């Protein structure tokens, strides 16, 4: 069966790939484009490890078909930092030690960036609810949430 040719934009750069109709965006990012920053945790949209942004909207890439990326803008964890310059969210994750195995981390960072873009001053409860779709088996979430709230403070140029 003929493959589908998709032209899209990933992290601001033009990209193209061939895919089968049933392949998810997650599969194509990881297996065909070698962009393994986005992780597979459950393939059923429950864990958030595959979080990406499509046309400005936070979505689970395991539940987006690769073919849907045609003409759309996809943003992944690989595009969060500006070269070697980390964002406040990334910096605070490091400073707080907000990861252990790190498998949930790309999804959390992509989601947290989106949270702070929409709500620059979230309460702890708002942050936890927004990030409820990102699961972590290692840390117990405490340092993750502190890192996100401190990153928000840094972005508002307040003392962390």
């Amino acid at each position, binding site marked *: 069966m003929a493959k*589908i040719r998709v032209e899209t934009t990933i992290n601001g750069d033009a990209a193209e790939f061939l895919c089968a109709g049933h392949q998810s965006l997650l599969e194509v990012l990881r297996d065909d484009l070698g962009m393994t920053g986005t992780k597979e945790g459950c393939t059923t949209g429950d864990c958030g490890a595959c979080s990406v942004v499509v046309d400005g909207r*936070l979505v689970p890439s395991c539940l987006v078909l690769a073919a849907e990326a045609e003409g759309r803008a996809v943003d992944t964890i690989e595009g969060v930092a500006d070269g070697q310059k980390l964002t406040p969210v990334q910096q605070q994750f490091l400073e707080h030690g907000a990861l252990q195995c790190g498998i949930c981390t790309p999804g959390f960072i992509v989601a947290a960036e989106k949270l702070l873009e929409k709500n620059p001053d979230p309460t702890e409860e708002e942050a936890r609810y927004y990030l409820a779709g990102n699961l972590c088996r290692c840390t117990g979430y405490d340092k993750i949430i502190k890192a996100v709230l401190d990153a928000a403070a840094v972005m508002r140029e307040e003392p962390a």
Partner: protein
Amino acid sequence: MSAPVSRFEAPTEVEAAVALLAGEYGARVLAGGTDLLVQMRLGAGAPALFVDVKRIPRLSSVQLDSNGLKIGAAVSAAEIYENDSIRSLWPGLADATDLIGSTQIQGRATWSGNLCNASPAADSVPALIACNATAVIAGPKGERRVAVEEFTTGPGQTVLERGEFVVEFEVPAPAPHASDAYERLIPRTEMDIAVVGVGVAIELDDAGAVASARVVLGAVAPTAIRVPDAEAALAGSRLDDAALDAAAAASTAAANPIDDKRGTVAYRKKIAGVLTKRVAKTAYVRAQAR
């Protein structure tokens, strides 16, 4: 997977989508994919053809006027909840929509998928019914309208025939002193399936008493159900204890749930009553504020 390679089409017109869906037994509508793709992974196999309906402009449009809301079937839950007008006119329906899944799922999920998947526990459905919403269906014989209340016929079963799909929802504007509310009970704090969901819409008369109510239960029967006896109990009242107790008892009686890992029959019946009172009060207070 039963079909190792699926085809994918993204038509830009309703008629083209109908032709694709009618023309092939294995064709499935792709809106948000948050049920379809999960089912694919969990054993249903990949459809022969995905018909992505999100490129049809009508399915992404949101129109609000004095008659109410006309909204495309592919508008995401996130977009619905971010709409200040929808949140203010139908707060219960907005809340119900916002409860589906996670932020990521909300970026994809749609009312049409929630309805057509026809889970008895779908969160937006009781609220859509409470708000008297109608689904506009396109198919080989043209378009027809079906009240959301009549759309689902059993778990996983709807009135849709071959080649048909939902293109729009119509939600009538609430009366001047009317509002709605929705709450559900889940075992966790977030990210779970309703044990009981209750949607209530209340319209007040000029004196501030309940002119009419719509009470809808989810997750306690094969489909979402209205509770006429609860509605009658609330009508004419100012939500005094007797009226609320009668409404709760009616919901408990009407609930016809199953025992499963999330709750027993007895628990679900009791909670149906508890939530009916709570949700009715919220709807009443909101109606008074309008």
